[in-house]
């Protein structure tokens, strides 16, 4: 039973930490310069990973889908299958998990290192609120960057799928796009993309929690990085289930 009480204790602490992020993000002074810096760190530096992964995943998925749909003589459905699966689920979820690894470990390790090397104490000693200065901009940057990076993953996946299909069947780009977006509704596109803002909040808050609150010195840096990735990834998958139910509730026509 001890693990259960520890789990509840952890959930309470992370919840409290996340609530503080929400409250402090609405309270001036707003750390715009720090937010810009973190957007570059979180967004720009993750772009290559997202685009290359999306492209490769799109190409591989089309190859697999083609093999199955050929059996049913339904290869014309490949672009639609590709678009729906990428925009509705694969893009948001894979982007969330990849970025939990890329960003989560970075935030956890950087903040834990700052704690271990007394940089956070130094910020406090300069009369600067270290939570608002370090944590809030990182979480907000994740919330803003995740949906944008997800869009890049979606379209990179579609491009990878198109090139794969073009090699196989020499399909024209216009026809591919027409078939891809013909059955796609705005609700298939907007709600799943926006749900990644929640993934961003999870990654930012959880990783910042592990980094900011560590008290284990250098050993805590590695632990914070690992825990950030593991817990963020787990919570993203759980949150995905809940958010899909919410999306189905709010947009019943997306429930196929």
């Amino acid at each position, binding site marked *: 039973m001890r693990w259960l009480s520890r789990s509840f204790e952890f959930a309470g602490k992370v919840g409290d930490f996340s609530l503080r992020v929400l409250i402090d993000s609405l309270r001036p002074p707003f750390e715009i310069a720090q937010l810009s*810096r973190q957007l570059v760190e979180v967004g720009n530096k993750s772009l290559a990973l997202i685009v290359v992964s999306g492209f490769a995943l799109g190409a591989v998925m089309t190859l697999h889908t083609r093999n199955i749909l050929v059996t049913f003589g339904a290869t014309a459905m490949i672009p639609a299958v590709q678009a729906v699966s990428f925009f509705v689920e694969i893009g948001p979820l894979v982007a969330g998990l990849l970025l939990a690894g890329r960003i989560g470990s970075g935030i956890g390790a950087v903040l834990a290192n700052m704690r271990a090397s*007394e940089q956070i104490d130094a910020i406090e000693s300069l009369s600067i609120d270290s939570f608002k200065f370090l944590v809030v901009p990182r979480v907000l940057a994740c919330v803003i960057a995740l949906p944008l990076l997800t869009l890049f993953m979606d379209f990179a996946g579609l491009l990878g799928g198109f090139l794969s299909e073009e090699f196989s069947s020499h399909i024209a780009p216009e026809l591919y796009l027409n078939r891809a977006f013909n059955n796609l509704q705005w609700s298939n596109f907007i709600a799943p993309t926006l749900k990644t803002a929640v993934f961003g909040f999870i990654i930012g808050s959880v990783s910042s929690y592990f980094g900011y609150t560590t008290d284990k010195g250098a050993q805590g840096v590695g632990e914070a990085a690992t825990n950030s990735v593991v817990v963020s990834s787990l919570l993203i998958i759980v949150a995905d289930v809940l958010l899909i139910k919410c999306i189905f509730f709010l947009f019943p026509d997306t429930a196929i």
Partner: protein
Amino acid sequence: MTTAPSIAVEFKKVMKSFGEKRVLNDVSFKIEQGQALCLLGRSGTGKSVTLKLIMALMSPDSGEVLVDRDNVVGMGEQGLSQVRRKLGYLFQDAALFDSLTLYENLSLPLHRLTKKSKEEIDDVINRVLDDVGLGADGAKYPSALSGGMKKRAGLARALVLEPKILLADEPSSGLDRITASEIDRLLMRQREEHGTALVVVTHDVHGVRRVADRVAVLDKGNLVAFGTVAEVAESNNEIARRLITE
């Protein structure tokens, strides 16, 4: 009629424990503005904790910590912010911000806490960097600085807001004798030219003899000796005597 000297830092019956371990036990002392206090003691006896209590980076379990007559225990964020403006803190490993250049490390508090113009900030930073002998290194990142340069850079950041009280955590640790004495000289100059009170945690007896007006010796959380270097050297407490003479 003479006015009473201004008290810079005062501890009143301060207790602090971490779990079962008591690191400060009923500690009381005070130093006046412009004085230099060196805190001595074996590792793990609460010296760095004392500095962090003064800076209100942690709270005591009981007792009062007065900084320039304000009790920082239980003080709100706004009050703490005002008190911390009077303090400078040189951390043991300098604690410079890795992602910022030396210039940016110094400009951060000036931008945030003062209404100085860009030109005025440049002037202050250039002057402070020149004072610590790093005038040509403002564009460097902390990773490009040597141990001694980092200490001087940390000192520059601690001085940039012109504090009334300077806290220094082992300013000479890991440095050769010459660099250590340079750091001590910078601390002394700050005290002599600006009347800054110094609270210095150190293991360097040479540094203590150069800098200290008063010496406090902590052992197992207790303040076992307090006085001038000569008084502590004659103390009844063996630990205190050995720390100052061996």
